[in-house]
């Protein structure tokens, strides 16, 4: 039994770190350090830099333009991005639709989309949730009616992260309202957001930022060659997408970055430092849990239900760190200062993002399977309850 990384893995970590240091635009880096959200152009530029080494798509196989990372390399790569901190490659592209195209896409679809998806020439949005379909996703109502070579799609999607930056949206639609089970009548469609009938409206979240949107689809004519997999078999594709790519789901490196900020702000405040140490103790052990699950992935590529532990505990610690950062910053953090405020003096700790980020991080225990859903999964799959 051995927890150590190999010399090659340690060298790889340094290689990733050096690449980030040399290639990440200083303004983008500064924004990430301060917890601001980089602009579209900054994110695109960074992903294209990563893509020069095939690193924009860490989980893709070499046969489809990925780097062929081992699970351990994927973890190290993401951990370095999180700790730097640097933007992750856009997850809708590389963790969600990319693997789906590789698994279910036709040769023509792969040819049309894969390279552009990796290079962020196409920015994808995720069109899953609806006002009436959150955790119970399969109850979605957006309809798709076949009309010749097109599906005519109408409905209301919600919580599309960064859809105002997006070109396309992968979308779940109800193509057979008569199906005996609600999971059976669903299809997986790719929708060009420039098509007539598409309207994107911002939703301003409690951090006073525009990150998410709702998308209205009004008789949008989607060509049938934009169907992924078989008609009415979209739920299988969805399950594949949701079980795919759980590496780094604990976001341990991001929490470490928050702890660095806490320590800078805490100065000699012993109470804050003790609370930070309590978080660090649990975070250190969660890192071991993460490695145990990675070790399992080396033996089997099947989805590991223990990933729910990483999500639950990872979010718990990240939320707790954001709360402690708020405490360390004190009332000065209450001043409203938006992300587009000019970058100031290099050494000054930017307090403007602390309250907004504390607030919006509450969403982390809601999206991607809420904490309650994760507990349900664990009770069922691990405890037989």
């Amino acid at each position: 039994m051995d927890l150590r990384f190999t010399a090659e893995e340690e060298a790889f970590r340094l290689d990733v770190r050096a690449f980030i240091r040399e290639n990440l635009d200083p303004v983008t880096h500064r924004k990430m350090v301060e917890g601001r959200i980089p602009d579209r152009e900054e994110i695109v530029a960074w992903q294209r830099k990563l893509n020069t080494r095939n690193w924009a798509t860490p989980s893709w196989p070499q046969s489809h333009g990925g780097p062929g990372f081992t699970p351990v390399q994927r973890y190290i790569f993401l951990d370095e991005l999180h700790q730097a901190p640097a933007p992750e490659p856009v997850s809708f592209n590389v963790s969600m639709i990319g693997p789906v195209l590789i698994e279910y896409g036709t040769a023509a679809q792969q040819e049309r989309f894969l390279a552009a998806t990796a290079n962020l020439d196409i920015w994808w949005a995720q069109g899953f949730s609806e006002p009436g379909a959150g955790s119970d996703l399969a109850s979605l109502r957006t309809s798709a009616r076949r009309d010749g070579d097109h599906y005519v799609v109408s409905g209301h999607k919600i919580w599309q992260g960064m859809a105002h930056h997006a070109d396309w949206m992968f979308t779940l639609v109800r193509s057979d309202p008569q199906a005996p089970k609600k999971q059976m009548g669903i299809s997986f469609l790719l929708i060009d957001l420039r098509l007539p009938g598409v309207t994107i409206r911002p939703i301003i979240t409690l951090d006073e930022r525009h990150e998410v949107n709702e998308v209205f689809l009004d008789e949008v004519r989607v060509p049938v060659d934009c169907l992924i997999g078989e008609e009415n078999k979209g739920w299988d594709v969805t399950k594949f997408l949701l079980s795919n790519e759980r590496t780094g789901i604990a976001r341990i490196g991001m929490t470490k970055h928050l702890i660095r900020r806490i320590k800078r702000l805490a100065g000699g405040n012993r109470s804050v430092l003790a609370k930070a140490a309590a978080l660090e103790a649990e975070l250190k052990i969660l890192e071991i849990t993460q490695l145990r699950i990675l070790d399992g992935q080396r033996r089997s590529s099947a989805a590991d239900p223990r990933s729910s532990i990483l999500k639950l505990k990872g979010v718990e610690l990240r939320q707790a760190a954001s709360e402690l950062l708020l405490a360390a910053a004190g009332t000065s953090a209450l001043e409203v200062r938006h992300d587009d405020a000019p970058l100031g003096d290099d050494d000054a700790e930017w307090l403007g993002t602390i309250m907004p980020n504390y607030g919006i991080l509450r969403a982390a225990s809601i999206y991607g399977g809420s904490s309650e859903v994760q507990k349900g999964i664990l009770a069922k799959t691990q405890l037989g309850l």
Partner: protein
Amino acid sequence: MDLELSDDQRMLKESVDRLVAERYDLDQRRGYMSQPAGWSAEMWSAFADLGLTMLPFSEEQGGLGLGGVETMIVGEAFGRALVIEPYLPSVVLAGTAISHAGTPDQVAEWLPPIMSGETICALATEAAVTAERTGETWILDGAAKVVLGGDTAGQLVIPAGDDLFVLPADAAGLQRRGYRVHGGGGAADLTLIGVKLPEKNRLSGNGGCTRALEAGIAWLAAEAVGAMQAALDLTVEYLKTREQFGKPIAVNQSLQHRAAEMLVEVEQARSAAMYAALLCDEHDDHVRATGYAAVKAVIGKAGRFVAQNSVQLHGGIGVSEEHVISHYFRRLTAIGMLLGDTESQITRLAELGGFTTAAPHFD
């Protein structure tokens, strides 16, 4: 990285698991507790026969030369069976202290009786003792409390000043008051008044004590995992079989979620125990110090959560002495408190600067 057990480790696990499964159920355990020492000399011999009492010591020192993982395997099995024999005090704490701090001559004198199981040795971990040197003789004065295994030990290891001293339990000037400890096993409070020891009984330096405490934390972590997993398994089984309002209580989502939260803590504890087991080979003192502080902090918190909730989910029967869950509750509570509770470990980790510095990951 490789987190699987080797074939040899699997065989060890099977034989230890079998031994406690056959000879350590709750009734048998009650029988062992009622013996004069408060534990079973026969079981102790069985552990020695299996080689467990010599397991962690190097072959040079006459041991089996096995490491932290093997000790973890034994600890987990002992935790599940709630073993009360003094393995932690004698082998893990006192044995590690002597093996790390002793000269070859001292190790040759004190360690073999521990490895054979014929002598029970105990290490004072909460001691305030001074040592004055007069010629070739050391004179010890002071007190030690809650010396685990101290009630039945024939030999004691006591930190005084900058060193450790080995003394027989019947040394002149040593008084001890032995007692049972909640959660199983025994301990003693010691008073030392002018206890005279020759120079050869002094183990130089305190490094042995630090190593012993670290080994103790690794052991407690493993024991906690065994106890927590057993408590969780019993609780899940109970949820599935206990009926109220005409249905198994497992149909209640609040109880399912509580059990899932317990699972998360058990898995965290398991990670902590594995980390602790592998950390004993680490050469960097700071890495070991921060690592063991984190391990014990997490074990204490996770153990308390699982202990409290396994009683809660068992309902009334959970608070009865008769039911094994109440024994897991007490042992996990004791484990959390021994060798530094969560709060003191967190304070220590903070003093050591934690794992992450205030400096950026890179400039």
